């Protein structure tokens, strides 16, 4: 049980670094999709006995993050027909190192906080912090709009990992609402990406500078 969990967490953290270090957008989308599936498996592994609730939550999030959202993102990529390079404003290697440093920091930070006496928390809390940090790095160091969306998804994935500690606190409908909001959000993002590309002939968010004081 414990070994399954820790291997899943290790895969999760590795995917963060893949997402930070890849030079092609398609690879990042696939990495984030794979992470969605891993999250579903993690939800199953984190809860010893299988209930319909946990099963529905795990399958729902895996289907959404592993399939539906990547489909939307690849469609957006095709529509805007952009160059597929990531174009980071911070080099790939520095952001990779930053991500690794953030992972270490996450482990240190979570050891400073009081944790419940279960085997779950010491694994999931640092994984969650590290994934949120990786999401932030991706969000802030990439220029293309679509990469920022990917950073946002990574951020949400990290929060989802933390949420696994609290499945009892979230009514099923609320949990479903969170996933629905995420999907609709990504959908709206992809529509606006389409408009940005049409109006600015680029997805470079540095061009979004008409509005300022």
């Amino acid at each position: 049980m414990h070994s399954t969990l820790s291997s899943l967490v290790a895969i999760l953290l590795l995917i963060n670094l893949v997402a930070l270090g890849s030079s092609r957008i398609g690879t990042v989308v696939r990495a984030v999709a794979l992470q969605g599936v891993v999250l579903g498996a993690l939800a199953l592994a984190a809860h010893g006995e299988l209930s319909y609730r946990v099963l529905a939550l795990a399958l729902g999030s895996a289907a959404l993050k592993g399939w539906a959202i990547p489909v939307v993102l690849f469609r957006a990529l095709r529509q805007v027909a952009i160059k597929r390079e990531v174009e980071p404003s911070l080099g790939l290697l520095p952001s990779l190192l930053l991500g690794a440093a953030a992972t270490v920091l996450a482990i240190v930070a979570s050891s400073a906080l009081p944790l419940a006496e279960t085997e779950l928390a010491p694994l999931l809390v640092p994984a969650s912090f590290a994934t949120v940090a990786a999401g932030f790095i991706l969000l802030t160091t990439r220029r293309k709009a679509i990469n920022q969306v990917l950073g946002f998804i990574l951020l949400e994935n990290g929060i989802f990992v933390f949420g696994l500690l609290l499945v009892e606190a979230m009514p099923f409908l609320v949990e479903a609402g969170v996933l629905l909001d995420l999907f609709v959000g990504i959908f709206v993002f992809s529509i606006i990406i389409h408009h940005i590309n049409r109006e600015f002939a680029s997805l470079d968010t540095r061009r979004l500078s008409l509005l300022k004081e």
Partner: protein
Amino acid sequence: MVSLSPILLPLVMAVVVFFTPSKRWRPRLLAATAVAHFALTVALLSQPAGPVTSGWLRLDAPGRLLLGLVSLLFLCCAVYSVGYLRYRVERANRRFCACLLVALGTMSLVAYSQHFGLLWVSMEATTLATAPLIYFNRTPRSIEATWKYLMLSSVGLAMALFGSFFLGYAALLGGGEASLLFSDLLVGAEALSKPWLRAGFALLLVGYGTKLGLAPMHTWKPDAYGEAPGVVGAVLAGGLTSCAFLALARLTQVAGAAGEGDYANRLLVLIGIGSMGVAGALLLGQRDLKRMLAYSSVEQMGILALAAGLGAGAGFAAMLHMVNNALAKGALFLAVGNVHRAFGSKTIDTVRGALTRLPVSGTLFLLAFFAVTGSPPFGLFASELLILKEIFAGGRYVLGGFFLAFLFLAFAGMGSTTLTALQGRPPRSARDSNYRDRFATVAPPLLLLGIVLLFGLWLPDPIRALVSDAAAALEVGR
């Protein structure tokens, strides 16, 4: 099921409106739904509040106040939309009308939320529903504004979700059940794990503070309010901010009950007065009318956060200020929307002589400016005075001094921009434009302004009861 109709009715009607083929009928259906929503809300509020039950979806006293406020504001905005869309026949209005209705439904859901998870879901849903409204004009500027609005709000709200989970974990460590129900958190507040509670509070403050537009998370606000149609600005600045403030007030209540009131209040006062200062500075020399309104909203949100941080005594003043601000902002955005239509511009480089070109809307703009800057005899004067009294009652004279100075700064900044736009001779282009003040575009801001004036002179008993019940419910355990 009847009691949930304020949520369900607008959502069902949004679908109906979306599939209505007639462009002329969609705004009418929008207005009809708003009237029905308002009637339902008045009927609900005229019954005494039911017994306090548990459950994650019910209407408590603060929820009742928010629902009433949102419903009234939306009614005015919907009627205005009928008139507004008549001038924008070249634009498709399918998404506009449907998204407005979804926004109404999700704002009502915020009022009903009794659970931090559900509260987050509904706040995120209001954001998603309003994003397409901002790029109604399909200009590069409006798309840039939408992108910034959506990105910053989504990331901010992600922090709020993270913070909500922290609260749940604090409860779990406290030995209780992991629950995110407001009532459970309040009952078990003493036992909440303090480090997780503090971290959760900070994240939630950042998250819902982004939605409120508190500095330094306010940067999306001038862009979004500046590029959105006036009526959307009214819904955002009056409705969504009030929803976010209620979320903040509920959070503060939990922190207070857990014995972390001092920590929470310090943060709230700091971020509140900071927002007032930033807004005051950016209001000076502002040339864009709608961006000016956005900074004025940042300032008002600062006042609200400050009031929330003053402790139990300021609860009534804070709730009253939330109501007054929402109504006054509604009036102001609608009036400025009319000016924008008539002049085809929203900067004072072009907008001159608005009082000559639009005697009614111009006068409304002038009066709403006085109302929003807290001039007597309008309602905001009364609520700001109550807040100031509470500051001085706590012996915090330096804070009081800054509060007054920033209010004056905002008055001066807004005043010079507003008067420049209102006085003088209108340019030829504006005299020839096709916009005329009509009933549908003038009556809604007039009504909102009339109510703000009324609340300044005399607060009717049912309204006073609504506000004080809401304040009292948010103070239990603080």
